């Protein structure tokens, strides 16, 4: 049984969530009406996983999350509104140590909510097994105690590529990254260590709702030496630019004449969006598989594993994030299981590996 603590000030929402998880059969559910009650429950109920509402009177969800991470580190899933504001708050929560987020359940109960409940249960179940990045949280806590909570992450110092004489940069087309649960902080870390003269474009499919990817791109941009932007219109693929696929849509590579383009596409027939499969397939079609470096990172499910295994078989480079550094080792695990990765690396080794490839 998974011990789940639901923290929400709305009795309606508590009732609804408690009903959904009790019906699932493998959850033991407790509820808290406020942040203060939640903190009391931590040492009594000893939850395996917590769902936490952001907007509560008194102590709000972010402050509560902060206390949880200090007093009783435990996987927390934020219950978020699918708004721009909700996205910004949620990204902040992920940076503070929350494992994942779920959209506040919505849609007429009378029409049945099975689609949503499946996702809710899958996400919370996955989160309950998540590894908490404790050490990272420690350094952040030090930073927090210095009194800078919001976006105070120091701009990481990324070393410039040292070009050794006689060796020139390998002409690879692009880096494609697929990532899901636990992605935002991991991307922050990876992109933050890429040098400003990194020579390839980087295309990212991070599973997310539409309203989240804009704030995510802006947040990543603040911590990265390379420009990061959300792809909202067709753009010519530019070296050294980082492209974040728009949420609830797909990201594809195409071309106009000889110029490779990156553009958003209406969501196709895939389970997750932006789809890693579709991004990798279109990039391989237009640029050629041998010119791709694929990276599959933390996240549940298997999106991207098949397409990347194919890229590897056709001469491209493929990296999987390792199990210890991934919050959920679903996608990279599936890639490794299908023998689709050239190497399996801890999060912190991925950027140096990419830089190494760039140096040839």
């Amino acid at each position, binding site marked *: 049984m998974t011990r789940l603590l639901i923290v929400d000030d709305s009795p309606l929402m508590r009732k609804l969530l408690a009903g959904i998880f009790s019906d699932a059969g493998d959850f033991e559910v407790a509820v808290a009406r406020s942040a203060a009650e939640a903190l009391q429950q931590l040492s009594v109920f000893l939850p395996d996983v917590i769902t936490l509402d952001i907007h509560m009177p008194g102590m709000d969800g972010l402050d509560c999350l902060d206390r949880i991470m200090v007093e009783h580190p435990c996987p927390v899933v934020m219950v978020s509104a699918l708004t721009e504001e909700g996205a910004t708050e949620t990204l902040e929560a992920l940076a503070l140590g929350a494992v994942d987020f779920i959209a506040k359940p919505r849609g007429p109960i009378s029409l049945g909510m099975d689609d949503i409940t499946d996702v809710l249960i899958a996400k919370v179940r996955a989160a309950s097994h998540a590894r908490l990045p404790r050490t990272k949280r420690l350094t952040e806590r030090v930073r927090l105690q210095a009194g800078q909570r919001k976006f105070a992450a120091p701009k990481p110092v990324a070393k410039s590529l040292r070009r050794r004489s006689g060796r020139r940069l390998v002409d690879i087309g692009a880096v494609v990254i697929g990532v899901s649960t636990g992605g935002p902080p991991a991307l922050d870390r990876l992109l933050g260590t890429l040098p400003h003269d990194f020579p390839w474009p980087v295309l990212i499919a991070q599973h997310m709702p539409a309203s989240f990817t804009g704030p995510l791109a802006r947040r990543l941009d603040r911590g990265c030496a390379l420009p990061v932007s959300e792809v909202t219109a067709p753009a010519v693929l530019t070296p050294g630019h980082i492209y974040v696929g728009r949420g609830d849509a797909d990201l*594809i590579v*195409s*071309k*106009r*004449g000889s110029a490779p383009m990156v*553009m958003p*596409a*209406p969501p*196709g027939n895939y389970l997750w969006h932006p789809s890693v499969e579709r991004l990798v397939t279109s990039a391989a079609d237009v640029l050629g598989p041998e010119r791709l470096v694929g990276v599959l990172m933390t996240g549940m499910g298997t999106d991207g594993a098949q397409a990347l295994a194919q890229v590897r078989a056709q001469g491209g480079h493929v990296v999987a994030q390792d199990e210890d550094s991934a919050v959920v080792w679903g996608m990279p695990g599936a890639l490794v299981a299908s023998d689709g990765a050239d190497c399996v690396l801890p999060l912190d080794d991925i950027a140096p590996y990419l830089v190494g490839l760039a140096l040839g």
Partner: protein
Amino acid sequence: MSIAIRDGVIMIAGHCPVEEAEMLLVALLENPGSGVDLSAATRLHMAVAQLLAAAKPPVVAAPRDAFLRDMLLPALFHLDQ
């Protein structure tokens, strides 16, 4: 795949969903001046239709589907544009 090139003609067949707009666009760009054969088309997404209206390629064969032939085709190629 409902968009194909055969003997220099862009063949648009069956039900063309939104994602085929990108394929049609690439086909139109790579085969400037070539005609389109719509005879086997049964349903076009607006994204596909607006590309035809923007490019106005010669129509080699009109659709057999009544809505596409009588309503859409004239609308795509009329003079108000």
